[in-house]
């Protein structure tokens, strides 16, 4: 599966969170990072090129700071220009059908403010309705957004967990499933390089971790089987 991240940020160099996310995936060959403001500093979009990029990928992600409950202006302009009739909708406009569409939102205030009764008063699901409508109209499957609240206040450990969750959001078929996460993790562990860990027994520990992940999965499946049996 190939993922296209369409990134929009007017001053990306100053954004710690965006830099962090870019670094997280810069060596993944199945992920294309596409920064609109860098590609089109004059705002003139090459529509054919953008449509071709869309065609070459299976999962399309819009990644942006959630300014005034919407995207930066260039991303809106990109939608106006690129998602044209006969391509994205209308007669023979089925080029995006079957693809997946997700959002990575960088949000400056805390998560609780986006609950009903919170300071913002509306939920992310409500405020992202226009993007959900785009997915519906273009025949794409809308993914649950990946929202990052108050990045700057996160602890180092939280940032590390975020890094992995973000990689999984971009590459996992079902990012919410524990089983899918296990399979992803096993693959990463099997490909781990040891030259950056100065611990002799590191390969042994990793082997043990792999066995435990696999054994636990067997046990979980077996437990589920028994439960289903008694549920009948």
């Amino acid at each position, binding site marked *: 599966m190939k993922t296209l991240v369409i990134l929009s940020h007017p001053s990306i160099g100053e954004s710690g969170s965006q830099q962090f996310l870019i670094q*997280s995936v810069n060596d993944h060959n199945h992920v294309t990072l596409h920064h609109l403001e860098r590609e089109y500093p004059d705002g003139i979009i090459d529509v054919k090129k953008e449509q071709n990029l869309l065609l070459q990928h299976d999962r399309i992600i819009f990644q942006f700071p959630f300014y005034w409950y919407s995207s930066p202006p260039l991303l809106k302009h990109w939608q106006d220009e690129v998602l044209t009739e006969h391509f994205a909708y209308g007669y023979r406009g089925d080029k995006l059908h079957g693809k997946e569409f997700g959002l990575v939102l960088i949000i400056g205030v805390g998560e609780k403010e986006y609950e009903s009764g919170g300071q913002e008063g509306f939920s992310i699901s409500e405020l992202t309705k226009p993007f959900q409508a785009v997915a519906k109209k273009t025949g794409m499957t809308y993914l649950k957004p990946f929202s990052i609240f108050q990045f700057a206040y996160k602890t180092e*450990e939280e940032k*590390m*967990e975020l*890094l*992995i969750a973000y990689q999984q959001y971009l590459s996992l078929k079902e990012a919410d499933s*524990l089983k899918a*996460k*296990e399979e992803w*993790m096993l693959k*990463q*562990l099997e490909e*781990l390089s040891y030259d*950056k*860990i*100065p*611990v002799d*027994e*590191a390969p042994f*520990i*990793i082997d*043990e*971790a792999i066995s*435990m*992940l696999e054994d*636990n*999965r067997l*046990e*979980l499946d077996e*437990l*589920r089987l*028994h*439960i289903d049996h*008694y*549920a009948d």
Partner: protein
Amino acid sequence: MESVEWLVEQLDKLVKESRDYKQKALLLSTKKLIQEQEKRKEQLSGELDGRLWSPGSWRE
């Protein structure tokens, strides 16, 4: 349980010693994933116990 604790400790050690940020993140998440599996196992065992003790299934 003992081997889980041992493994968690060893993974923490690798997180500390690794010189690569992304690798540290991966090792930390491996630990968290194992802990999540352990939690699910406990939950499912509890659910299974509950079902075995459910009067509804005693009639069989």
